[in-house]
């Protein structure tokens, strides 16, 4: 049995959800450190969307992106020998 199969499910879930959560949090902070939401989305900001909404939505979008990347990493880490099964 290959090692990847023996990794507990929780570890695999964590390997997808957790690094993506951390990196998207850092990315979000760095992004809004440089730009204010009003500069990036002037029309939306003018229509009364709150900064809290910008930060939250950006974070969730980034998380979804990095999460997809983590998922793909896990997918490609599957041993090639199993592709023939």
């Amino acid at each position, binding site marked *: 049995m290959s090692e990847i199969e023996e*990794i507990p499910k929780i570890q695999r879930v*964590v390997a997808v959800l*957790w690094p993506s959560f951390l990196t998207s949090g850092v990315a979000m902070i760095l992004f809004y450190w440089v730009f*204010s939401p009003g500069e990036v989305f002037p029309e939306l900001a003018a229509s009364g969307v*709150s*900064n*809290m909404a910008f*930060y*939250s939505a950006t974070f969730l979008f980034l998380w979804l992106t990095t999460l997809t990347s983590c998922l793909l990493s896990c997918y490609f880490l599957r041993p090639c020998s199993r592709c023939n099964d």
Partner: protein
Amino acid sequence: MSEKASKPVKPVQDSLYAKREEIYPREVHGIFASWRVAMVFLTLGLYYILPWINWGEGRQALLFDLPNRKFNIFMMTLWPQDLIYLSALLIISALGLFLFTSVGGRLWCGYACPQTVWTEVFLWIERKIEGGRPQRMKLAKSPWNLNKVIKKGGKHLVWIAFSLWTGFTFVGYFSPIRELAVDFINWDLGPWETFWIFFYAFATYGNAGWLREQVCIYMCPYARFQSVMFDDNTLIISYDEMRGNPRGARKRGKEKPADKGDCIDCGLCVQACPTGIDIRDGLQYQCIACAACIDACDDVMEKMDYPKGLIRYTTLNEAKGKGLHIFRPRVFVYSAILFGLVVGMVWSLATRVPVGVDISRDRNILYREAPNGDLENVFTIKIMNQDDKAHNFVISIDGMPGAVLDPDEPETHVESGEIGETLIRIRAAEDIIKDRSTTITLRVTASDDEKLTDDEDTRFIAPADWFQK
């Protein structure tokens, strides 16, 4: 110890790859358990109380006011431009962690990590409702009946309520907590506040209630690399094999059997372990250095009339008989760097002037002739007001005697946290221009507080052909 030991005890976390078995840590009492309880009160006490403290009238002492992009930290107001301080704080924390780890091993894990302190609270709730380790194991094995539903359901209800309070407090660091409390009571919260309260509550409930030691094993980056900060003089929790082995059961009060060591193999150290390992197998990555096994074992040693410390804080060198060396070059170097950084940061914060100026030259024309025949340079001045109230800023010039500003005494009103922009012209008569490029200093000072001042150098440019003779 009120709970009766049962034998034999197999370490639960036998293999990293085995299916996880539920761990029911036995409650222990002792010096290290008391330290942990004290740290729970200190850390969580601060966490839940700090956002309610005001500094000055109506100003929350600790508020990371994301909507307005400013951070209240007691008497200071920091802005996104001050992120350097946050970075410095992170570096200081990391270095502090290096220092503590090299001296005392995983002290952070055992006493101060949020995962540990919240798990401690969740375990306390579990114990109060479901009982001690044997009762909890029995309840888990028993078929579903009214008693089990009440106990398990009650536990989860209390956990959820506590988690919601935790989530609410968390959001209270980012959105004024008193307003948040009123909105919460009237159930009039904004959608994102609601989302984050539930998100953080869910994370707390999941991590401290369900995942527990798995967070340390699978999620914690520090746990993975902490061992590289260890050396032979780092304090670790260790079982004294020389003294303890061979292990074996014996009658209490009788003479110690000649063929046995001091370990009576009661298994209490394993039962007490929140990560389910057997410390007698040596130092392991799963050990969070909570010292519950020390407390459990000391208790047993006392009852057996054996000396305490069969499991104790020791170093590899001490175990080898080379003595305890806490103060060593590594510790001094870490301490010195840490001290330097802390002093630097405190000094920088204490002398921080909350105004910033940025000068840019008119890109289109380097110089031009003014109507009266003087030479003129045009600049755009950006004034960043990082103070927590609005000010009028006056601009003055230095470094070129005789040069004048137009407008005369330019004054710019800038709101708190805003950046004001103004255009100024600097004029100089031909006879006072001594060089093609003259360094001048533009100073910006608040009209009502001369300590609020900042300056920046720029250059006054004259035509090159004036100086080519």
